[in-house]
Each structure stands twice: as structure tokens, then as C-alpha cells.
């Protein structure tokens, strides 16, 4: 593992970044499994209709094979790499997120630029007690994914307080 992702006994990297909760791997796997099931159903229907319409196009098997391989990799390997390469840091003035499987992205969001903070969780994340924190800026949306619900709410509260205090500071200036 690259040194920037290694964590010490306190669970922090040398730059002070935190890893996600290991449960996130399960969430990713369950989500991908659901997509796989839906895709298989759609592909099966397409094939049945193709045969009924008088044509079974063998090159489409390559596409089906590719999709199945993609999902198997997504279930078995991707969550491990994603977990190993996801680090975040909520500082006083900025949010830093390091993430990626093949391409590592370092996302920096100045807290001054955040307009809105939102905690979101779908049904699967809800089952596992995880949530996302989405931060809206004028240039787009950044997020910290797969956080434990309590951690997500703590970060959202902290960011909301900080955004309000920045606005008040601006008003008084």
C-alpha cells in the first residue's frame, strides 16, 4: 500500500487522514450484487426476445461475458481496493478526500465555498448504518461516502456550524 494511505495505531495516516469503516465493503458488494441481478434479468429478456424475433446474435455473448466479468471484479476486488484507497480529512478550513481504484483523486473543498451540507443514505446503507455527506458548492457537489451515521451527522453539524459562522462573519464585516 502507498505510504499516503497507511494508517498508524490511532487509525490515521501520517497526514492525519481517516479511513472508512470496513462495513463499506459489504455495502459496495450488496449494491453491486443487486445491479448484477437486474442486469442479468435485462440481458436474459433481451436474449429471449432476440431468439423470438428470429435472431440470436452471438457477438452479444462477448458483451454479456464482459458485463459478468466486470460485476465479478466489482464484487470481489474493487471494494477491497476502494476501502484501502479511501481517506478523508475534515479540517478547520477545508475538506480533503483521497480516493480511487485505478486513478487516485485528491479532492480539496474549501469550507468557505460550501453552501449546503446534506446527509444521505439509501436503503442498503441504512441497513448497515452508513451514510454519505454531500457538500454543495457553486462549482459542483463533493461527498464523503460510506461514513458511519454518527460520524456523518457529526461532520454535517460541524460543517453547518462553520458555514453559518462564516456567513455571520461576512455580515459583520
Amino acid at each position: 500500500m502507498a505510504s499516503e494511505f497507511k494508517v498508524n495505531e490511532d487509525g490515521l495516516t501520517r497526514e492525519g487522514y481517516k479511513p472508512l469503516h470496513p462495513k463499506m465493503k459489504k455495502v459496495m458488494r450488496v449494491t453491486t450484487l443487486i445491479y448484477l441481478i437486474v442486469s442479468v434479468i435485462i440481458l436474459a429478456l433481451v436474449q429471449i426476445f432476440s431468439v423470438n424475433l428470429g435472431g440470436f446474435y452471438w457477438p452479444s455473448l462477448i458483451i454479456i461475458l464482459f458485463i459478468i466479468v466486470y460485476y465479478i471484479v466489482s464484487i470481489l476486488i474493487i471494494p477491497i481496493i476502494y476501502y484501502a484507497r479511501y481517506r478523508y480529512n475534515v479540517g478547520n478550513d477545508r475538506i480533503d478526500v483521497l480516493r480511487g481504484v485505478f486513478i487516485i483523486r485528491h479532492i480539496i473543498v474549501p469550507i468557505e465555498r460550501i453552501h449546503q451540507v446534506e446527509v444521505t443514505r439509501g436503503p442498503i446503507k441504512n441497513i448497515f448504518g452508513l451514510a454519505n455527506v454531500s457538500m454543495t458548492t457553486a462549482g459542483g457537489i463533493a461527498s464523503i461516502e460510506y461514513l458511519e451515521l454518527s460520524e456523518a451527522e457529526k461532520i454535517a453539524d460541524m460543517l453547518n456550524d462553520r458555514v453559518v459562522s462564516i456567513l455571520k462573519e461576512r455580515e459583520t464585516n
Partner: protein
Amino acid sequence: MTGERLRNHPTVILDNLVQTAFVIFIVLIFTLRIWASEAFLIVGGVLCLLTIMFYWRWRKTFIHFNENELVVERNTLFSMKKTIPYTKIASININRSITNRIFRTSTLKVNVNSSSNAIVPEAVLVFKMELAEKVKQDLSRTGSKDEPQAEIYHASAVDVSSKDIIIHGLFSQSTLQTLSGFFFLGVSVIQLRDEMMRPNASEGFQGLISLGMFVLLTIVPTITSIVHNANFKVYREKDIVYLEHGLISKFKTSFPVAKVNAVHVRSTFVSRLLGMSYLEAEVIGLGVDTKNKRPVLCPLKKNEVITAALRELLPEFVYEHDGIRQPLEARKPIAAKAAAGIFSIVAASIILTLLLRSVISGDTTLIGMARTLAENIFLIIGTLMTLGMIVWAFGYYKVAEMSLGEDLFTFVSGVVDRKETTMLYDKVQMVTVSKGPVAKRYELAVGKVSLLTATGGANVSSGYFPEAQLNKVHKIVMARLADGRYEGKLDKA
């Protein structure tokens, strides 16, 4: 204007009705054959109801010009109160549609700096022409630190003739779009020729579809651009830039310089051969009338004219800089990216060709050149895309540049159609530094800066540069935020 309470001009009722009637008319065309008289009755009834509804909405909508903010209030079943502080106004556009011209009114579109409403105005006000002008002047004044401008004649900062507008319309369209258009033209010629040679010539219409694609991709954008940019005029008074253009619908826009987030100097392949480029600005709200396109501050002109126009209109975006080229090692991640792209293109074109051949194998109506073309269309497209990828790889290394100044920084990108984007650090919303496995080996990365643009939140990307160099962008942004040089405080200063 302060303290006044106004209503929109009653023509908004007519405008709303015309728009709704148009939609209903389209629906009517599709239903006419089945139940013509009933459809007319229903549409008539709906329009009567809508007239009452639009009248009620007009009567209950009030516009207040308070000391510090504009308030639009509606007290109908779905009540609404929208407060727009004058200081938050990014741009005010005046439009004069055909209805406006008939009734001598103007439509004012007020926009604020918000990515969610970038192409939808925050408030749309319809007043008599003179009143609209006065409101625009007052709002421009309250949004900036300058005194109101009297209605006097201003010469354009750039001399733009009709010939310039036609040249802009012809050569400012993206090269890829133009090439795609001509590709469809070529296909249509072959298809039409084959269709005419068939015994039953009236059956074929595929050639017309391809011809339609050519018209849609090349002729329509050119004419739209010419009509939209005709009678072009741009000038700056103190810290406000004024923009006027339009042949059928007239557009008058003004925006404070402080609301400009970035400027682009763009050139297409053909325009570069002619030594020409054009100037665009990223200002929220100006995309409202340009159908999602960025507002043009100066159409295609010689490069030196564009440089002079930028100095005249937005000197705040001019700084002395020498672009940093990508290091030699950047060729490796670029080559890896191109190789991955070529592999995907080749695989996709082979699979799609096999699929298509299976599909059309039993089709006896396809004959001659049209059949050969249909069988090999994905191979042709794949070959062209592979060639494009190779050209991209060579060009990308040569073209991409970046430079970091004190207040501004610039990214140059685009192999065929080039774009030089100059941005203020204080307008940066988010920074992303990405590195793939090959780039990582050479400590290189790609920078992506998120900004608020005329069409909402958007990104500007760099080429492959040393990671440390790219990290300077967010370090400067954070340092400026920390020492108070950021947008909020500057606006208040």
C-alpha cells in the same frame, strides 16, 4: 425605484397563453386524426381556464424594489416570495421578443450567482420599454459601486461588422461537430444515389435522414449563431460590461466585472489557420439567452484584436505569464491513455460490426454501395476514431500548458479546438488532483478546477504536470481564503 411596488405588464398573460397554446397545438397535431372536433373543444376550454389562471396570477404578483433587495411576491393558491439582495445580482438581461416589440415592452431577466439556477433566471420581469431600462439602470447601480449611467450613446469597444458575425457563425462551430456534419453529408449522398437507382425509388428515405443530420449539425448552428450575434456591441463603463446583440430577438445584458468567474480565448482548427480566435466570459445568467452556450464578448477576430479587446473590457484578467509546458515524462501517461482508448475503440468497432452484420444479413433491400457502407460503418468510424486518438496523443502533449500568477492562473487545452482559460483563484470552488498508475510513477497528475460558470458548475482541466505544481493551485486558494483576499471580502471592500 426604492419602495415602489409594481406589477408585470399585462402582456405576460398573452405571452404565457401563446406558449401554452403552442404546446397544446403540438399535442393536437398528433391527436387530430382521431377526434378532431372534441380536441378543439377541449383545447378551447383549457385555454379559457388558463386565461383566467394567468390573469389571476398576474393580478396577484407584485414586484417590490426595497432599499437592499428586490422582492417578487405572489399571493395565489401556491404563494411565493422571492427575495434577491441587489449585491447578489450577477447579471441583468433585457430581451425583446416579437410580443415585446408589438407592445413596446421589454423582458428583464435577473440572475444571481447560483449553480443550481445558472441557466434559469431568478426573476423575470416585464415592463414598458422605458421603465425596463430605468429598472435595469437602477439595479446595475445598486449591484455595483458605480453611479448610474445616463442613456447616452456608447461606441462598441470592438468594431464588429456583419462580415465578422458571418465568419464567426461559420468558423466558431466545433470542428468535431462540423466534421460529423460533413460525414453525414457524404453518407447521405451515397444513400440518396442508391435509393434513386432502386426500382421503387419512393421507398427510400434514409438519405434524407442523413441529410437532416448534416443540416442539424452544421447549417442550423451557423444560422443560429449569426441571428443571435448580429448587431453585436460590447462596451465597458467603469466596473460594468454592457453587451447587446440579436437580429430577431434583441438582447441587452450588463454585468459587474466582479461577477466574471473566468474568461476563455477559444479557437477552432479553421479559425487558427486564419489566425483568429474569440473571447468568452463565464458570468452566471448570461447562458440564459445563449441556449446553454457561454456569452461571447468578442466574436472571431484576429488574435491581436482579441488581446486588445480583453485588455479593454476585462483588464482584471490580463497578466504577464509564460506558460509551463508539460514535462517530457508526460508523454508516457498520454501514450498509455491513448493505447487504452484505441484498444476500447477497436474492440467496440469489431463487436458492433459483427452484431450489425448479423442483423442486416437477411435484409435484401440493402444493395450496392449502401450495403457495403452499412456493413462497415462501425469499422470506418472505429478507424477514424483511432486516427483521431493518435492525433490527440501527439497534439495533447504539445498543446497543454499552465501558468500560475499572483491573482490569476491559466490552463490551455484542446488539440483541435483550443481553449485558453484564465481564472481567478478567488472564484475556485473545488480542486481535484488526479493521478493514474502511469502518471503516478513519474509524479505527474492532472488538475481539475471546479468553477461557477454561465451554464452552472463546470470543470476546467489541465494537462499532465508535476503534482507539486498542481497542488500550488489549492494552496494559493486556501492561503487567499485565510488572509481574507477571497471574493466575499473583496466584494464588500
